[in-house]
């Protein structure tokens, strides 16, 4: 008998009782003993937590890798030790703090590096590099950029998927989600992807989707001319690309999830979104509707 009573209160606490069972339980002495207390707790909330604000802080911190010696916020004693610590951290901050650039949706920028190499950064991308370029030229890239590198010491571009090393050359690096792609337009670059290493010369390209070198015939990436060109590309690739240049989010209907749709075509970033969608959908027999910043796609009946 005793066991049954204990189990019931746990069933109640563990949200296992149906509404009838719960009503019945609330008549028992076991419940009544704790009724007030449980009522108070039902009327209590946890300390609020701003998930989005904290997420932004985290994203900012993980983008830049500062070597600042963290000063504990609440404690700033007026002592010699603290003064030295402050001086040291300012020194480290100045010498080690990287320069970074980032682009938002539909934004692309161009800038020079300390050695006069040029970089073009595509939409929704981020680059950071150390300040002191006398010893090494190191770049960290998330997204896509085209480089024209002045001849000099080893120049390295690191992404979360792979690494590109060059001496003096023109090349494009693209890292989006799981995909890593490098196009060499001039000179030669060495590409390192997981355990695979290769050297690309002009007109060679490497794509993580198909291992091994391939050929391509452009003189420079299409996005520099503000357009994207697709040749039998998966729908997902196309949608991801459109999402870089138009501030929208795609939501696909179940009917599309299962179909393997390939698209051949192109669009210019100055086109209206509706024009781009019209062409895409007409070609793949899809329907779309726009609501706020979401585009809903489904197969045409």
């Amino acid at each position, binding site marked *: 008998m005793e066991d049954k009573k204990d189990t019931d209160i746990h069933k109640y606490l*563990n949200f296992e009782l149906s509404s009838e069972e719960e009503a019945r339980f609330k008549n028992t002495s076991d419940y009544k003993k704790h009724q007030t*207390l449980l009522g108070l707790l039902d009327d*209590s909330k946890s*300390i609020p937590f701003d998930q989005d604000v*904290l997420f932004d802080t985290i994203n900012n911190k993980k983008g830049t890798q500062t070597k600042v010696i963290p000063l504990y916020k609440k*404690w700033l004693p007026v002592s010699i030790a603290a003064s030295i610590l402050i001086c040291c951290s300012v020194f480290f901050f100045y010498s080690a703090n990287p320069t970074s650039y980032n682009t938002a949706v539909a934004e692309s920028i161009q800038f020079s590096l300390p050695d006069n190499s040029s970089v073009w950064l595509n939409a929704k991308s981020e680059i950071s590099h150390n300040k002191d370029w006398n010893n090494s030229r190191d770049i960290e890239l998330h997204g896509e950029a085209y480089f024209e590198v002045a001849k000099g010491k080893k120049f390295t571009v690191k992404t979360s998927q792979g690494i590109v090393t060059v001496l003096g050359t023109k090349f494009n690096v693209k890292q989006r989600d799981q995909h890593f792609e490098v196009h060499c337009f001039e000179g030669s670059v060495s590409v390192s992807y997981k355990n695979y290493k290769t050297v690309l010369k002009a007109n060679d390209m490497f794509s993580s989707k198909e291992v*091994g070198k391939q050929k391509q015939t452009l003189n420079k990436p299409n996005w520099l001319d503000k357009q994207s060109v697709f040749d039998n590309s998966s729908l997902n690739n196309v949608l991801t690309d459109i999402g870089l240049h138009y501030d929208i989010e795609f939501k696909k209907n179940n009917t599309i999830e299962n179909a393997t749709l390939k698209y051949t075509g192109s669009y210019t970033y100055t086109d209206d979104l509706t024009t781009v969608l019209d062409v895409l959908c007409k070609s793949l027999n899809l329907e779309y509707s726009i609501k706020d910043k979401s585009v809903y796609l489904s197969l045409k009946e």
Partner: protein
Amino acid sequence: MNLNTPSTAPSVCEEYHYNAIYKKHSKDIFNFLMFNYGHKEFAEDALQESFIILWRNCSKVSLEKAKSYLYTVAKNKIIDLFRSDNNAKKHAKNKKSTIEQETPSFILEEKEFHKELNDALAKMPEKYRVPFLLNRIEKKKYKDIADMLDTTVKSIEKRMFNALEFLQKELEINKKRF
């Protein structure tokens, strides 16, 4: 040249997965830290730190292990924060400055009785307090709590029971106020 086919296994380093992990676990980790220590600022710092460290080591942590990794880093970080804070307080004791004793707040104080409840909860061993609040406030089931705390459902049942008894006793004195 080694021509290993690149694996297409999902990784924490991919923003899509990293962001999903954040959405799924950040609130739980925050509440876990809050119910343990009742210090909002430290909880936020420890939570941030755990996600940043996860990102730095993303290539070494599998998707499945990410959750326990985050809890481990967060727990260590918050203990660290308390330790440095204690050291700071020790040094400052000699000065005239008044460092307020931060009273732990486990639940939101909106009504008067919440303050009494917080005081009672502060006296409760965290072994009971954490599962108890996860269940009563966050409406978590025993199984989920057992997973979070790396223990069994039976153990959670016992702790829930003890928590109830403890609070009953603690608040009995003030019962007439309610």
